[in-house]
């Protein structure tokens, strides 16, 4: 029989980090030299392979005359001239258009994806698979083919008879209908344990409330994916702004990039500068949302 001393003894030493090897699928552990080294090497390779080429774009953007035959990480003739030219070509106006459209379009797209994804994932009705299939089918026809009929629709909404052409809605409304986002939301929402939704139902929360306060926080990673790719998807829209716009000044930055590319008077550097500007917002969106992708939040909710 042994009896513990009543008060606890002073702690010998206090560890700094407290993470276990069960946080990640590969079971990386902090502070283990062998695996840390391996991981560092892998990261270096990844950096080189994926970021290297892009860094040369950035370098090129700051280079007066980027070389068409080799890659440089450091501009040979560092200058901001390219940006000056791009500014002169009105790139900021297009940039702003893009931001506006991507901002509102994304908002709408997320709302649509969340509601439709919810309906598909958590309501049981006949022909669910077919509905999802039809949604997906819309992703399969080349944009170019539907562009012309879409332009007709935009010019004269059937039954309603309003022309959206030349308004911001002509771009925002079509991009809001994204089958991809719906697919993502539906797939992830389906994996939420029923018990939790049931608990909220019993707690008297309306469906809307459950969706917003329970389901969405638990699908944070999916929301992250939708927001990131939704933003990029809208940001990359090319045909739509062309057929939807009445004025050049309504174009998005993608169109501006294409015209820079076609413009024989400006060098590659200006194009790269434009491309560099164009990638910053998407990158920022990704940076902001990245954390929602890597934190596990569902554990501890239910047993079994």
């Amino acid at each position, binding site marked *: 029989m042994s009896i513990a001393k009543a008060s606890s003894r002073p702690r010998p030493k206090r560890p700094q980090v407290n993470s276990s090897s069960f946080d990640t699928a590969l079971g990386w552990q902090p502070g283990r030299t062998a695996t840390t080294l391996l991981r560092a090497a892998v990261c270096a390779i990844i950096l080189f392979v994926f970021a290297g080429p892009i860094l040369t774009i950035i370098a090129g953007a700051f280079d007066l005359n980027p070389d068409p035959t080799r890659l440089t990480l450091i501009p040979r003739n560092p200058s901001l001239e390219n940006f000056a030219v791009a500014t002169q070509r009105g790139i900021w106006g297009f940039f702003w258009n893009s931001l506006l459209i991507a901002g509102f379009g994304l908002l709408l797209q997320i709302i649509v994806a969340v509601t439709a994804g919810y309906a598909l994932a958590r309501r049981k009705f006949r022909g669910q698979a077919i509905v999802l299939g039809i949604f997906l089918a819309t992703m399969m026809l080349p944009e170019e083919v539907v562009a012309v009929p879409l332009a007709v629709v935009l010019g004269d909404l059937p039954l309603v008879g309003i022309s959206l052409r030349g308004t911001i809605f002509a771009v925002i409304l079509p991009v809001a209908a994204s089958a991809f986002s719906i697919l993502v939301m539906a797939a992830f929402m389906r994996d939420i344990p029923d018990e939790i939704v049931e608990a909220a139902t019993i707690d008297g929360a309306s469906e809307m409330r459950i969706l917003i306060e329970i389901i969405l926080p638990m699908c944070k990673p999916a929301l992250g994916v939708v927001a990131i790719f939704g933003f990029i998807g809208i940001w990359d829209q090319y045909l739509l702004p062309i057929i939807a716009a009445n004025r*050049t000044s309504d174009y998005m930055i993608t169109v501006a990039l294409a015209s820079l590319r076609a413009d024989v*008077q400006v060098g590659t550097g200006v194009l790269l500068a434009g491309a560099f500007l164009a990638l910053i917002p998407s990158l920022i969106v990704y940076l902001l949302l990245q954390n929602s992708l890597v934190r596990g939040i569902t554990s501890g909710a239910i047993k079994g």
Partner: protein
Amino acid sequence: QDALEVWSRSGPQAAETYKAVFAAFTEKTGIPVEYLATVEFETQLQARAAARDLPDVLIYDQASMASYANAGMILPVVPEDLAGHDQLSEASWDSVRMADGGYYGVPFSQHAQVTFIRSDWREKLGFDVPQTHDDLSALATAFATQDPDGNGVDGDTYGMAVPGTTDRGFFTWWLSSYMMQRGGSFVTGGEGKYTVTVNTPDSVAAVEWIQNLFCGTPSLVQPGALTNASATPFFAENHAGIYQTGPYAIANFDKAPGKDKYEIIIAPAGPGGKTTLTERTSIYFGATSSKPDQQKALAEFLISPEAQSLGMTAPGQPVVRLPVNTTLNAAEIYGDDRWAVVADQLTDSQLMPSDVDFTTARLDIAETFQSMFSQCTSDIQGQLDGLAGRISDELSQQNALQ
């Protein structure tokens, strides 16, 4: 909506110039213009065509006229009705005449492709200005092999910059000049009736010579030429010494490689002479327009000396390369003798057929040639026979085969 809707296929720089021109027009006539400059001209036009709501006036490449006219999208023009029509050359008006004898456009700008050469490299290696194709290939070979930029690295310079992409049949434009200079041709004829000549012995010999540029001395043509969207950077960034293209590149090349580092010359003569390709821009009237008078007024203004010179000089980028108005002298207006060379070359240049829809043929040609040159096949005759067959089919469908 009273304004006249005008579209052109241009980037933002050219659009500036157009805006200046239209501002002058509005000031003069009181007719407001709503102007749209787009790089995706065709797509946008198709979209509007589907909605049966075309712009009033289109300013676009001559090569597209036939297909628009065939589709009923543009209206015929009576030259005689236009004030100042007589200030345009016969050749200009011919270019906008369709096979049925009707006119479907108003000429606006013209130029011929010229040859750009890195004069500093040429002088460094001790060559004269090339006069013949032999000179040209000797110079190209020297550029490719003798380190003309003197950086001590061999193999980072190439002889010719070639825009080899098949996008829109781009390659065909470049090829046609050399074909003509070698005595070959794609088709011959005119007035809406053509004979396919791409597989005649002359043409085959011409093709063999061109193929040798790609498949002979390595690096004579810049590597990757056949998939490059644009060859311009190679000339601009000190990698290629010879570039045959339109004079719109002048402004760009003045910045890099630099005004004093290159020269513009009349094409070196091949066995078939020194003819190059003519490129033209024309004005078309949209079929759904309800403003015929304003359309006409704009066209009249655009061919007037005032608008033509404004199109060359207004801030931005010249949208009139060489004036179609014969009362004007480009070199004077630009204050730049190099434009005289372009004007000279224009007198020895030839338009691709534009009174029939040559688009499909152009694409076919580009694709076939690209295929021959990338594979360096020896069966040139066979390939060209096939091509000739396809072009014949296409032309006979349009009832344009002689």
